[in-house]
Structures are given as structure tokens and as C-alpha cells.
């Protein structure tokens, strides 16, 4: 048994390693074909020649980016676990970030409450925006794929309009932004002692960790999670087992939207300029889909995926500045990694099956004791 366990751990590690090897190979090939400096690129990507300070900054930036990605991917994963395809995280988080920034700046509250208020507003707003496709699906049977795609664009127009109405900017500024959140709504950053940098990790990184833990627990250990997964695996069987699928659709969508609402918050309350503006990060919802899939919709897998993604994003700058290679290489690598990971898992799966068959064949030889259906 122990040797079998060994084998399975080994195979478990084999898949990601194989994936990375594949991705490195393909990317190097692209570089060679395009005539870019392969060695230099890899050295840059691994921060080989970077200054200590740059490396430290990179670590912090990776953690920060990953935090944001994590919420987004988690939001997507909640839907995926029951085969609900929420492409609308993009619209949900932007709507929520705006609402939280705007309402957060218009109330006066003591410190911890104010932060809580911002978080609650964000989650409610995200859930509200997600409620539309949920209700359309359960009452009118509208596919959530269509409705969320449409609602992303509607959110864009709506938020653009609201932002124009609410903008505190004026004069010569060419930006639009909500009012700055007061100090009481800020969440201080965390300095990591041994890292030589002034850049700080978002205070809300803990919220991401908590969200991941709650997600894992809720999905794997609770009745609700069981119902959710059962619905994803077989809707018909879930219905027969007493799951109210419509209610699950609404619940999953609202939860997904609430988590999506958090996507914009770490940056909003964690760093200047503490507002929502035209330069606020966009596109996170789509990144979330890729990362959720990369992480196979598990809490830990998504965390690894988010860190990897963030790492490549962060590497884009030195790649341009130090290696002189266009940043699109990073996009190509990200795409390649997503494919490599899944292909690697499939190859390992096939290997596992065939080696299992060989094992059975070998076990059969000794004698009639090993006969039979159960091996």
C-alpha cells in the first residue's frame, strides 16, 4: 500500500512538472523561431540578474496580483463546480468596485466598521449584478453564457455613466474617479520583514486566504457543497436526490457574484489613490476564468494558478526592459501553460491507467487467489 501511495504522489508531482517542461519547451521554440535571445529571456524570467530590491518588489507584487486573481478565479470556480458558466465576473466586479468606492466614500464610519461596510457593499453589489442572469435562467431559461456576456457590456456602459455622474475630478484632469475613501476605510499594507522593499502586501491578502479556506470547506465538507457538486456531475441525479436545482443556480450565482464583488477591493482599500477611476484595473474576470480552469477549480490549485499567472505578469516588465522581448511573449506563455497543464494531466492519467492494467496482469500470475472481479 505504501509503495502504491508513493507511486501516486510521484505521479501527482509528475503532472505539473511535465506541464512546466512542456511550456518551457514551446516558449523556447517560439523564441528560437522568432530569433529572440532564449537564454537571456529565461534568465530575466527567473530574475537571475535582478537587484535584490527588484526581486523583493517582484515577490510582493506577485502576491498582490495573485490576491486579486484569486478572488476572481474563486468566483468563477463556484459556478463551474455546478457547471454554471459565469462569464460575468468581469461585469460583476467592476460594478461592485464602483459601488463600494462610491458608497464607501459617502459615509462616515469608525475604522473597522467602515472597511466592513465597503466589503459588504461590494459583495452585495456583485451578488446583485449576478442575480440578473440567475433569475433569467431560473424563470425564463435564458442561458447564463449569453446573459453574462451581455451583462458585461451593459455593466461597462452603466458604470461609465455612473462614474461620469459621480466623478470628483475636474479642472484639467483627464481622469474620472470617485471621491477618495477616507482613512477609516483603508486597510494598511503588510511589510514583509526579510524583503528589502517599501512595497507592501495588501492587507486583504488574509481575506483571500480565508475565502479560499471557506471555499474548500464549503465545497468539500458541507451538505451545500455536496449538493453543488452533485448538480454539476449530474443534474438529473441531483434532482432525484432532492436538490432544488433552481435554488442551487440562484445560490451559486449569488455567491459567485458576491465573491466577484471582492475582486476590486484589495486594491481599492489597500493602495492610493483609494478610488475607482478610469485607470482601475480591468479584464480580471476573464483572467479569473483561465486561472480557475488552470487550478482545476480547487482552492489550492487556484492559489497556485493565481501565483503562476501573477508571476508571469510581473515578469513582463523586466522582459521588455532587460531582455528587449515584446510583452506578448508572456501572453503566449500563459496560453501555453494552460494547455500544457491539462495535456500533462491527461498524459499522466493515461500512464496511470495503463500501469494499473500492467499491475493487475502481474498480480494475476501467482495464483487463483488474485482471481475475480476485485483485484
Amino acid at each position, binding site marked *: 500500500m505504501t509503495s502504491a501511495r508513493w507511486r501516486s504522489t510521484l505521479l501527482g508531482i509528475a503532472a505539473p512538472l511535465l506541464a512546466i517542461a512542456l511550456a518551457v519547451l514551446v516558449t523556447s521554440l517560439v523564441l528560437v523561431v522568432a530569433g529572440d535571445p532564449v537564454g537571456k529571456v529565461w534568465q530575466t524570467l527567473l530574475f537571475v540578474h535582478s537587484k535584490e530590491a527588484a526581486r523583493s518588489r517582484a515577490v510582493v507584487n506577485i502576491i498582490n496580483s495573485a490576491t486579486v486573481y484569486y478572488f476572481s478565479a474563486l468566483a468563477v470556480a463556484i459556478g463551474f463546480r455546478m457547471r454554471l458558466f459565469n462569464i460575468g465576473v468581469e461585469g460583476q466586479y467592476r460594478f461592485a468596485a464602483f459601488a463600494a468606492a462610491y458608497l464607501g466614500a459617502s459615509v462616515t464610519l469608525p475604522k473597522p466598521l467602515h472597511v466592513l461596510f465597503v466589503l459588504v457593499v461590494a459583495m452585495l453589489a456583485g451578488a446583485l449584478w449576478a442575480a440578473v442572469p440567475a433569475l433569467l435562467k431560473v424563470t425564463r431559461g435564458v442561458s447564463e453564457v449569453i446573459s453574462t456576456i451581455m451583462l458585461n457590456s451593459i455593466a461597462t456602459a452603466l458604470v461609465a455613466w455612473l462614474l461620469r455622474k459621480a466623478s470628483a475630478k475636474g479642472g484639467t484632469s483627464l481622469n474620472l474617479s470617485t471621491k477618495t475613501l477616507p482613512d477609516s476605510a483603508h486597510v494598511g499594507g503588510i511589510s514583509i520583514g526579510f524583503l528589502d522593499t517599501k512595497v507592501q502586501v495588501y492587507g486583504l491578502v488574509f481575506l483571500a486566504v480565508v475565502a479560499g479556506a471557506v471555499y474548500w470547506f464549503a465545497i468539500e465538507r458541507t451538505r*451545500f457543497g455536496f449538493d453543488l457538486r452533485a448538480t454539476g456531475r449530474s443534474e438529473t441525479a441531483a434532482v432525484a436526490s432532492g436538490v*432544488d436545482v433552481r435554488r442551487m443556480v440562484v445560490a451559486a450565482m449569488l455567491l459567485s457574484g458576491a465573491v466577484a464583488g471582492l475582486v476590486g477591493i484589495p486594491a481599492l482599500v489597500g493602495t492610493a489613490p483609494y478610488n475607482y477611476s478610469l485607470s482601475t484595473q480591468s479584464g480580471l474576470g476573464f483572467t479569473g476564468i483561465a486561472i480557475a480552469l488552470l487550478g482545476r477549480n480547487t482552492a489550492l490549485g487556484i492559489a497556485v494558478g493565481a501565483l503562476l499567472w501573477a508571476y508571469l505578469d510581473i515578469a513582463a516588465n523586466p522582459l521588455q526592459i532587460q531582455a528587449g522581448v515584446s510583452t506578448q511573449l508572456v501572453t503566449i506563455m500563459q496560453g501555453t501553460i494552460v494547455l500544457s497543464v491539462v495535456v500533462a494531466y491527461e498524459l499522466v492519467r493515461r500512464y*496511470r491507467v495503463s500501469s494499473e492494467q500492467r499491475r493487475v496482469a502481474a498480480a494475476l500470475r501467482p495464483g487463483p487467489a488474485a482471481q475475480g472481479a476485485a483485484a
Partner: protein
Amino acid sequence: MPAHPSPVDTSHPVEVVIAAAAPAVTLRGITKRFPGVVANRDIDIEVAKGTVHAIVGENGAGKSTLMKILYGMQKPDEGTIAVDGSEVVFSSPADAIAVGVGMVHQHFMLADNLTVLENVVLGAERLHGIRDAARTRIRELSTAYGLDIEPDRLVEELGVGARQRVEILKVLYRGAKTIILDEPTAVLVPQEVDELFDNLRELKSEGLTVVFISHKLDEVLSVADEITVIRRGTTVATVRPGEVDARGLAELMVGSELPSPETRESTVTDQTVLSLEHVTLRAADGRDVLSEVSLQVRRGEVLGIAGVEGNGQSELVETILGIRKPQEGTIRLQGEDITGWSTRRRREAGIGYVPEDRHRHGLLLEAPLWENRVLGHQTQRPNVRGPLLDRAGARRDTERIVRDYDVRTPGIDVLASALSGGNQQKLIVGRELSGEPVLLVAAHPTRGVDVGAQAQIWDAVRDARAAGLAVLLISADLEELIGLSDTLQVILRGRLVAREDPSRVTPESLGASMTGLGRGEGAA
């Protein structure tokens, strides 16, 4: 070409008498391994031309796997296949079809959203095209073999019997000379079985060869010319019907007695557990699917519902389970009106459910066995504690079910999809009888289950009934229905049309009243 058995083969207890002509099919030394399981081990079978050759064996014995190998769907790890005396290697069913082998799978191989015509011509378009010529040919075949198939219907509109006939038509359309039927009778009523057997005899008389799998041993004895018994993946005997009776065959298979479904003494009480009052269910287009159904099941009673498939049984079951909401009428459980209750609440109140389609309604095929133990009992001990799953409790109880119901599996962490059909069924029955249900709604509880396991399931149902369980039983196996039921009702086109006394009715007369021809006492 080795048309005769190799001298190495001496393991057959009963030697096959080899006909003068080359056998239709010869399988030699077939071995097939799956992860964790050896499905076939060194199998030897020879099927003579123009005969009906039956293959019997326990659930998971490896019958379906063997047939899939013969049909080119799976590659054997070892061994050879010869058709008409010449050795062949199949890399896909196309190769098998090309040498005249056709197969009817038990889990229908039909695309629901395509028409009968499309399903039939698929892959054989070169014969008569895909339009009028093909339609004509299908009508011809349908008439010639009395299959009663309308080519332009969507398959999803067909009942199981009709689907079975479409499957047979598919094989005939391709002009197969050797036809494999994997449990073709499991879903048929006796009349349909008879018709099928008439067809088989007709095919045989035209020189075709039929390979036939079934768990119903008397059927096998009545139709087969030769019977091969498979146990635990390997051939243990080949016999002729005259040489052995059902009991002997069962002993060859499992080494146990042929059980009977008869219920001994009545345990019926006068406490009503389930009652339906004038329940009417309408389809989306406004037609009645169930009309004015009233019935009662009492503690300790098994109420059997007889009927040809597609007459509202599924809808009745789903209405009782709360999956469908009736437009009119009341449903009561132990006196309480549960008409408005959700499925979850009904199941919590003690309704167990063995669904007719285990793959769609009974299992999470991609989940391990222990999670399947939880399914349908997500709110009950030992699966959960409050809102949390109790993994240890669920696992322990799954192991109990595997032990008590003899589910043949390498462990409780394998996926449900890796179990053979019969073993999946045993798991479901075990699960639904756990946790002391007050009512069991069972649709075809022993479908596809071997004789040994069937007996275990019957015993389990009887024991639970004696302990006060009320059972609503739906089955296409009329022996089972008559044997287990305390009361029998016949459903026809959504209505309960007759009440029969199980102690007096015969399968034949019951079958007649199911098709609306028989005479019984009128019932509302």
C-alpha cells in the same frame, strides 16, 4: 487458418460438438484487463452457424466486455477472434460490421435527438442513402419482422420496447449474419419477449447466428441452442438446454439455488403509509399524463404496478417523489398532506427511491462509491452531522452496504462508473434500504441483476416489508411483480385500469390486461 480449437483447450467441462461447417464465431484465449480488474481471462467460445448461443454469468462476470471485444469496440489484451473460420483483427466496430457482426447493446446506443431513420442509417449510408430509399428499406424490414417502426419519429419519443426494436432493426439493416444481443429482454414485457424470440427463431431459420446474453435463465433455456457460462471472467462450461435445467445453470453460474420471488405470508397492516387521491398530472402541452390516479400503500404491503413501459409509470414515480408537481389531487404520507413538499423534504420523511434509469437518476457516475452513498440522503445520518458531511460515517456505511449486498468492487473509492451494471444496482438498493425508510418506491429494482443478487435484493425487500416498510413496486419482470406484490394494479395510458390478485394471476393474463386486452375487475 485455425478453424478448430487448439489442443491446449481442455478446460471445458462439456465439450462442444463441432458442426461440419466452420463456426460463425470462434473466440480463443481472450483476455481483457481494466484498471483494478480482469474482465476476461483466457476465454474460449465457439458459436456454430445458424444457432442461438446464450451467454450467462453473474454481474461483472465479463459478458458485456467479451461482446464488446467481439464487436470491435474494445481490443483484447490477448487472444484471437475468428469469424467464419478466418481470423480477424477488429480495430473498430466498422471492421466487425464489415464481416457481418452486429450488436444490440443493453444500454441503448441511440441518439435521442435524431430520428429513427437517422439512427438506423448512420454508418451504413452507403447501402440506401439517407433519404427515401432508406426509408423504404426500413419500412420493408419493419413489416417483414413485425417491428412496427416509424422511421421519422424522434427516438426520444419512443418507449423502451420500441427502442429495443430500433436497435434490432439497425443490425438487420446492415445485413448482419451474426447478431449479438446484450440483455435484450430486461426491459420487455412477456409479449414483447415472445415476439422477440419469434424474431430470433425466424432469423435463425434464415441462417443467421445469434449470441444472446440474459440473466433470465428460463428464457435462456427456451430459446438457446447452446449456453456458455462465464464465471469471474472465464468460461466454465458450455451446455445444451436439454442437458441442464435452470437450477443447474444457476449452480454453474454462482453455485447457489435458483431463487423464487414468492412472498410467503402476508404482513400487510391497515395503517396507510402512502395515499394518492385523484392525482392528475399534465404535460406541457396540456394532455393528461396521469389522470385521476388514486391508490394506497399500507405498512408491510408491496403494491405492484404493472404496465407496459411508457404508460405513466415514470411520471407516477416522479410525482410521488415530488420531482413533478401534479395539477390536481392530493398525496399523503402517513396521513400528512405532502403534495406541496419538495423532493428533499419527502426523502427526509422516509421515502426511498430506486430509479428506473440508474445512470441518469440514481448515481453520480464520476463520483466514488461513498459519495454515491450520500446521494439522496444528504440530510440524514450517518452521512451528515448538521450542515456538515460526515465522511467517516458515510464511508463506514458504504462499506457495510458493499458487504451486505455483495457489491463486487475493488473498494469504496472507485468511481461508480467502473462498476458493472448489476453491481451499480446493488449499491443503489442497499443505499435506499438504509436508514429505515417508511416507503420504498422501486422501479425495476433487479433489472440487469444476476440471479444470485436478485435473490438477495428480494430477501432484503421482504425483510424490510416484514419490519413495516411500504413498497411501491414497478417492474417489467412479471414474475417478480407477481411474486413480491401483495396487491397489483395495472396502469394504462396514465390511469389505473385494473386490480389483480397476485396469488391468482399468471404472467400471461397480467400481460394481457397491461395491453388493455385482458379482463380484470375494473378499478378507479
